């Protein structure tokens, strides 16, 4: 039986899809059969980030409506063995997702995979609710700014009350904090919330910090999960994050500012 992991945030544009793609690819590289499911019906992006947009034939909504079977809709990643994606529909909206439909698709995926990663849409409405409802674990993606932190806080409240585990009184959804677009230099200048502030406000375990990096944009444009760009800071940050999720202890490498040449010369 697979573990279902939702990648969620409340706020849009903080890096949910980037994180879903990198996290899914990382789990698959570690040898786990992984599927990433795009819940953002109507605003399909995951296929672009993962570089398989030309191979989408059937989608999540087709499967729910019985117009295609799961194997027809799943797209196998060509670079990483054991990684698949289930794309969202671009022509429909969130109302096309039914509770029973999502449940049956996730159950079917859970039987044939080790991890099912649900890429949640922004917001706290139907799409986001369904993405988190069946989750065992949650990656809460947050940017170091107040509105993102507050929205994440709201989502954490929903995770502890509006999920299957909460409603059935089971062990609560395990919550992990992922801070993205972190710029240590701007924290130093007081332009961004610090890691301590974010962790203090949200009071959940920190799984990873991904630095603000041009590598993320480049990787998205190229359709490559950023974790596969192993020379980049963001790629390494996601690699650490996946290793920590799988139980390895790794130091947080990107909390402090990397000094440039001038910084090194003048500040020692």
């Amino acid at each position, binding site marked *: 039986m697979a573990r279902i992991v939702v990648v969620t945030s409340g706020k849009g544009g903080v890096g949910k899809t980037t994180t879903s793609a990198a996290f899914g690819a990382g789990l698959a590289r570690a040898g786990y059969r992984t599927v990433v499911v795009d819940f953002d019906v109507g605003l399909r992006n995951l296929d672009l980030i993962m570089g398989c947009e030309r191979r989408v034939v059937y989608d999540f909504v087709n499967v729910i409506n019985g117009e295609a079977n799961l194997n027809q809709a799943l797209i196998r990643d060509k670079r990483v063995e054991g990684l698949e994606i289930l794309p969202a529909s671009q022509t429909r909206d969130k109302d096309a997702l039914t509770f029973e439909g999502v449940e049956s698709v996730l159950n079917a995926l859970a039987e044939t995979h080790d991890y099912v990663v649900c890429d949640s849409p922004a917001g706290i409405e139907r799409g986001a609710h369904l993405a988190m409802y069946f989750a065992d674990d949650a990656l809460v993606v947050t940017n170091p700014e107040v509105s993102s932190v507050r929205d994440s*806080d709201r989502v954490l409240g*929903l995770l502890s009350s509006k999920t299957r585990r909460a409603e059935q009184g089971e062990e609560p959804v395990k919550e992990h904090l992922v801070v993205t677009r972190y710029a240590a230099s701007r924290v130093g200048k007081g332009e961004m919330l610090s890691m301590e502030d974010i962790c203090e406000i949200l009071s959940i375990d920190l799984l990873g910090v991904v630095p603000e990096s041009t590598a993320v944009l480049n990787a998205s444009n190229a359709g490559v999960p950023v974790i596969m760009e192993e020379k980049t800071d963001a790629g390494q940050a996601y690699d650490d994050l996946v290793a920590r999720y799988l139980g390895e202890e790794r130091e947080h490498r990107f909390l402090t500012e990397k000094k440039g040449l001038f910084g090194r010369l003048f500040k020692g």
Partner: protein
Amino acid sequence: MAVNQASGAAFELKGRMATLTVLRLLTADPGHLFIQLDARLAQAPGFFDGMPLVLAPGQDVSLDAAMLETLVAGLRDRGLLPVAAADVSEDIASAAGLGVLRNLGGPRSDASGQTGRSGSGKPVAEARAPENGAARLVTQPVRSGQQVYARGGDLVVSAPVSAGAELMADGHIHVYGTLRGRALAGVQGDVNARIFCQSLEAELVAVAGHYRLSEQIDAGLRGAPAMIRLRGDELGIDAL
């Protein structure tokens, strides 16, 4: 939007602050009152139509059921909408089809223990003290958008309370963590209720309906342990 019929909630109960117009009754004679009221209504025709009203007997005015019914009928005839009465007994109010408000603020701070001022003759303190309910304990963080109400007793939170969260208790509120959201103690009118917190960064604190917003909280008290209580009509915040 409900996800499905089974798990979707059909309603929510929420505590909200609202401003209501209070009609303070300074005479026990409805006829006398209506003459003056008609003159006022004539000055602004239509302005008061459908206005929800709370009826509150003034000092030395006691209301009986018949009077209240006459008043309510007369007010409804004039297009006003009495919804509740303050400081009257439930039987009298419900006979007139009104709810009862117990914790109406305002000029009743003369705590000289006058009874018999209101028709009920019930000592105010007795009506206001919370029942001896067990305290409600919350050990998980209270997140933005969540609301916790300890009915009939105290609320103890051993975790942080986020901005945008709301705590309410009929009794005291204790927060052993940072209080960033709202905390309303004594919501049924217990003026002796207090709020204790380990670090005060609240958006709003209130005791028995007397509230203070974060910008009205002294900057020197922020981020430190504090106790909030009512001193007369004034909400006091003390460092702990």
